[in-house]
């Protein structure tokens, strides 16, 4: 990973579960464990959206969670990157028709990076976060 001149802080990640089966959750937490260890790059999971740079969304959006998703999205300060982890959020996955689902995540909030897989491997998630990092740099470079 080549840090560029505009990269001046570590990436803090906030995770939001909009109704998933927890498979992607486990892979996200497994990504943070000593085996893959992204914390050596400064990537860590935070508990509040106001501290975050990247938001990870998992799951197809259940109707009850739609408002909360919108609210959390607005609480994250710019510049931000939204990542959609898992096929549930991309096209519904196995839950492709239901009466209680609001739709894939990009119908509710704009998504920047999609990581497909059911669930995606930790390597794929790291690749996704690094892609998000690159996009964040470009956004910051563009606005600065």
């Amino acid at each position, binding site marked *: 990973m080549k840090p560029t001149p505009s990269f001046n802080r570590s990436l803090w990640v906030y995770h*939001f579960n909009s*109704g*998933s089966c*927890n*498979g992607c959750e486990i892979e996200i937490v*497994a990504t943070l464990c000593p085996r893959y260890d992204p914390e050596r790059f400064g990537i860590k999971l935070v*508990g509040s959206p106001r501290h975050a740079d990247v938001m990870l969304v998992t799951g197809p959006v*259940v109707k009850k*969670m739609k408002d909360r998703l919108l609210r959390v999205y607005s609480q994250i300060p710019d510049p931000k990157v939204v990542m959609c982890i898992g096929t549930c959020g991309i096209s519904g996955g*196995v839950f492709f028709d239901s009466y209680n689902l609001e739709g894939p995540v990009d119908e509710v909030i704009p998504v920047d990076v999609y990581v497909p897989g059911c669930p995606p491997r930790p390597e794929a998630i790291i690749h996704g976060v690094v892609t998000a990092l690159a996009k964040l740099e470009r956004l910051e470079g563009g606005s600065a």
Partner: protein
Amino acid sequence: MSGEKKSPYIVPIGPTHPALKEPVMFNFEMDGEMIRDVDFAPGQVHRGIEWMGMRRNPVQIVHLTDRICGICGVSHTLAFSRAVEQVTGIEVPERADYIRSIIAEFERIQSHLLWAGVAAHELGFDSLLYLTWQVREQSMDVIENLTGNRVNYGLVQVGGVRRDIVPEQHRIIEDCLSAYEGALGKLLDLFLHDKTIAMRCRDVGLLSKDDALKLCTVGPTARASGVNVDLRQDYPYCAYGDLDVRAILPDQYAGETRGDVYDRIVVRLLEVGQSCGIIRQCLSEMPAGEITAEPKLAKLLAICKKAQGEAIGRVEAPRGECFHYVLMEGKEAPASWKVKASSYSNLMSWIPMLRGEQIADIPIIVASIDPCLSCTDRVAVVRNGSPSILTKDDLHRLSVEKTRRLQQ
């Protein structure tokens, strides 16, 4: 302030916590730092699975059941397949039974190790979290070798399993089992002989045997309260009938049963050791033969289409009893399908457990019944009408601070 009777504050917690099938919205009635009453409302992850299932055929439903819960995926698939097999009268070959048992036990091991890490995290021992999850990674490697994926295995299908365990894989399994049996002593030492964990967990979150029976709890939560219930012992399915499994109760280790969080840790860690023994026995006694009764899916669907009748499939998932009821009436889709995940039965036990406990103990008590992942999200505390928001970090911090206080 003194002399006035303070009215209880209501503390809502939730719902964004990636637990259970349903992240739960809690409402606590507080009396100072003590919880007076608890109310909760699930429903945040209701995806309409049973309704979707009534529009698909059994082969498709098997893939859907894999994703009901990420951690206990095999249990749901197994329970559903067994129900359909009983309705259609398909005889599962014995080799498939043994393979199913092996993969179910591996799932139990990785689920209990995951839970142990989460419990340690909630108590403030982050290094234990990383250690346990590192130990867990070895079983994930074995599972990936056997099934092709770390989560959502896709191994079980109606009529048998889809992949075989060949002798070349036996060595990897054996390596993992011996590593775990060695690591178990260390884990038991770290968790159970630590003074602070004992102080945090002993007599916290008590659930009496009477309550456990009346509220229909299952799995390690019930066993920790002294209820002798284990499907592998009482209603043996797959290969367990040949293996003579016994339920693990805390008085086998600690001499007495108190039904608190400590007992639940005891039961789960000892079950990891038990699972290693079961896998080894299954591997050595595995009969040769076919791995599935009907490898061609089209023929399988044709058999299912003609089936009439109802059946129950029950499986001991890592969290308790997983129950599927299927009613088929000669059409492709089942006429009725009812899923009961194990956490469904355990939810009501939160109420007696949380009453009278302190707010700093909420994370560990909520996590102790193992609701599929970690805990709660945002806590809004209303004090005298002016709300202040505590985040998950704050709630976690309260729990960690209590540990540090006890350590001094």
